[in-house]
């Protein structure tokens, strides 16, 4: 029998739990309350004591720290061989994983090994009489799908970025305190036995920074489309992004023209984003593109064509020449920023 425990597999960077993991902990808290189960956070890496300190007096029930030098860099082989025994031991009912590159690689593999239900890209969770319904975008966000799971547990669930409330950023302990619950968590440390020979993938190197990185987590996105006319002109959007603390994205048309890399593409075949503020510059608003950004909280459209479909979804529209408008916006923001 599985108990009602909810697990969150929490990613961390530089000894800080990531935003996505905090959202998953937030979602986990909601579910565990309604299902009357515990909430456990699982952290993989090496020398994780910092988390046992920062999480020691929080609202989570259990913190499982899986330590091994071979877990510092993610490989699915190492993660799965450490997680499966722990899952078999504790038998959680649900495992929540944030939608990151790591999560999207790990979750399907974990679910396949366990032969249990898997749901990705969840943007909403509803519980009614212990029945859980997951809402997720399909067809690139043009439709939504309500999914139910059944059968053996744990169900492996990937949560869409920015879909669930997290506490304000900062140290983990303070974040978790923000939920207003304070009790001593049970901390268990596992030093796992791992052989490097059991890890089939060898990581040869990591190349940091690439355009479009952080798009899915960004609060503010400035995106350019065909109206940008040239790769050079994206510099202007970089400037606006740096004034507002945002990230630059692009429409499929701008990517196809070779002005921006694919990693920066927002849309059905690119990234699906829902920032607080999305400023679309010279983007007409093809269904493909709208599918990727229409859940943004506030949309601003700057376009010469008053009939561009982007104005149908924009909260604020400016019909005008972006080469005139954008520099003026930057200027104005700088003036009274």
């Amino acid at each position, binding site marked *: 029998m599985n108990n009602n425990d909810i697990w969150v597999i929490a990613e961390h960077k530089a000894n800080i739990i990531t935003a996505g993991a905090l959202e998953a902990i937030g979602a986990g808290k909601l579910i565990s309350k309604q299902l009357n189960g515990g909430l456990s956070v699982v952290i993989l890496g090496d020398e994780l004591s910092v988390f046992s300190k920062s999480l020691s007096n929080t609202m989570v029930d259990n913190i499982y720290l899986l330590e091994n030098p071979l877990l510092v860099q993610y490989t699915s082989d190492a993660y*799965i061989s450490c997680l499966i025994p722990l899952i078999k031991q504790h038998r959680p009912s649900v495992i929540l994983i944030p939608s*990151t*590159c*790591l999560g999207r*690689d790990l979750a*399907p*593999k974990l*679910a*396949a*090994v366990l*032969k249990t*239900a*898997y749901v*990705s890209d969840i943007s909403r969770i509803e519980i009614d009489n212990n029945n859980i319904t997951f809402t*997720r975008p*399909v*067809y690139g966000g*043009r439709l*939504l*799908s*309500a*999914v*139910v*799971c059944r*059968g053996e547990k744990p169900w492996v669930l*990937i949560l869409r970025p920015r879909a669930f409330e997290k506490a304000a950023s900062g140290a983990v302990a303070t974040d978790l305190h923000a939920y207003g619950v304070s009790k001593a968590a049970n901390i268990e440390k596992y030093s796992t036995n791992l052989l490097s020979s059991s890890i*089939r*993938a060898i*990581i*040869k*190197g*990591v*190349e*940091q*920074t690439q355009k479009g*990185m952080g798009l899915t987590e960004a609060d503010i996105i400035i995106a350019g489309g065909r109206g940008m006319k040239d790769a050079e002109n994206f510099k202007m959007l970089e400037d606006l992004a740096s004034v*507002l603390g945002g990230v630059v994205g692009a429409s499929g048309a701008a990517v196809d023209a070779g002005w921006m*890399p*694919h*990693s920066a593409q927002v849309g*059905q*075949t690119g990234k699906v984003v829902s920032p607080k*503020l999305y400023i679309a510059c010279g983007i007409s608003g093809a*269904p*493909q593109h709208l599918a990727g950004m229409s*859940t943004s*909280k*506030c949309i*601003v459209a700057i376009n010469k064509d008053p009939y561009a479909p982007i104005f149908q*979804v*924009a*909260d*604020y*529209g*400016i019909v005008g020449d972006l080469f*005139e*408008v954008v520099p*003026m*916006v930057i200027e*104005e923001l700088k003036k009274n920023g």
Partner: protein
Amino acid sequence: MGDNFLDNFWCGFAVLKLFDHMHIRCYTLAVKIFVLIKQVPDTAIALEIKADAADIMYQDIPWVINPYDEYAVEEALCIKEKLGGSVTVISMGPDRVADIIRSSFAMGADEAVHLKDTAFNSLDAYSTAFILSKAISISGYDIILCGKQAVDDGWGYIGPALAEILSVPSVSSILKLKISEDKKHATATREIDEGLEVVEVPLPALFAVQQGINKPRYASLPGIMKAKKKEIKIVDAGALGVASAATDLRVWGASRTNVKKLFYPPERKKGKVLEGDSMTVIKELINLLRNEAKVI
């Protein structure tokens, strides 16, 4: 006498076949590549939900190959051109799936497996991966390529799950792939949250490709002509030995996930187009972003 002659004949034939086999195995070390392809509704069309909300209306909608899978086909063809070997596309679905198989043939794929059986209708993600694993295992493989996800249901499951079921390593979201000269390893560059990661894995292995890895070729006219004549191997549940065995049904019979309903996202309320000269409009925009939307 006659018998002896025949014996010698068959014996000689067998030896020749053996040489033939050895030739392939020992001299060319042909790389066998499988590409998983899925047929999806054209991404540019409007979608309508059926009255019972369980699915979309499929009538008269144009179907295409999942764009990510097309990159996978292209990558497979590039590997074949460099190293020799063969490219087999494999797809599950009804008769219409033959269209994307033919278009893969036209690009240059050599063989195709069409998994077609009413028993395969509305399988869940695990069961689909399980059936694929059975079909692919029959003929052996060195490299499996697929798109990083399908643009219709967007599960992003089949590739990594299939690799787990087959117990082979896999690399997700790859933007570059290089096979070693001895064809025993592959080096892939994959997208990670911090940038790019270069990973080496032993073959056989599975790779899920990300947009940007290549530009799929257009089918040539001779390719299109040849594609019409190529044989599509139809495989049903019985051929895989998973049709009736109770043990298999337990594994893949009951759906782990069920779509309760589809619905349209809430419509955004109509916004306002700001009017006036540029300076007025920009001041108003900044004011609205600060004080009405409160997003900056």
